[in-house]
């Protein structure tokens, strides 16, 4: 067992879990995919050889494995969208009621986005990746990544505007 993998887990697992939780909208799935991903790396550490941007590489792997996992269960989009309708605690619970309301509304707004749009929004907002990096991670053209982000953000803004304005 290479100790580097534990370090890798400590550095990247929170971000990967957040992405998987947001993408799959199911804690069980996020957990399973993250576990599967790291067990794969334990079994085949050579996969990491020559990787320059570890976070981007791991997010790419996580995205692929999440899709594979859903394909195994059911039709990918249908399964993810069905799961998206179920409430999931995406964010850390906030003590401030206004903040808690905003987080709940944001979680609800993200659930309304199509899965692939949600993935782009997540990588752009919370991973601060460029559209080129997102395109590479999700196997889509950079233009598509940019347009998905724009549509997703506009939708979130429309949904959250009243609450957001109130909180400002």
């Amino acid at each position, binding site marked *: 067992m290479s100790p580097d993998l534990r370090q890798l887990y400590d550095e990247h*697992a929170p971000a990967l879990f957040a992405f998987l939780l947001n993408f799959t909208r199911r804690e069980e799935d996020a957990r399973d995919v993250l576990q599967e991903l790291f067990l794969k790396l334990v079994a085949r550490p050579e996969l990491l050889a020559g990787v320059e941007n570890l976070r981007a590489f791991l997010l790419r792997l996580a995205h692929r494995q999440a899709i594979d996992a859903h394909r195994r269960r059911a039709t990918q989009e249908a399964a993810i969208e069905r799961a998206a309708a179920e409430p999931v605690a995406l964010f850390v619970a906030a003590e401030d009621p206004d903040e808690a309301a905003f987080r709940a509304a944001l979680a609800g707004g993200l659930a309304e986005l199509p899965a692939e749009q949600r993935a782009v929004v997540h990588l752009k907002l919370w991973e601060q990746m460029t559209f080129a990096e997102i395109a590479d991670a999700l196997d889509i053209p950079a233009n598509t990544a940019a347009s998905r982000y724009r549509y997703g953000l506009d939708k979130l803004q429309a949904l959250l505007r009243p609450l957001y304005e109130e909180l*400002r």
Partner: protein
Amino acid sequence: MNDDFERKLRQQPFRAPPPDLREAIFGRTEKPANVIEPARWTWRDWFWPAPQAWGALAALWLIFAALTWSEDRPASPTPALAAPSAVASSTLVAIHHFHELHHAINSLN
């Protein structure tokens, strides 16, 4: 508004992975210290089900080998007619021993 809104979204902290997940991943990839390696195969394992029976069979084969060896000795001055009866009686003794051993094996099983 977009920049502010994006900033606001970025500030929302996601939940951390379940605390037990790390151990679930790395705990199961390490061999527990109390795992006992399987013992190496020995002849004892082969004889284990009925060591007495195998011993009896080996003894029987030794008796037959001894009898065969004694038959093949050419130097014996014994008359030609006497030899078959001697061999026959020793063979009968051996067969009798074989039956006894056979019963012993059956009683063990």
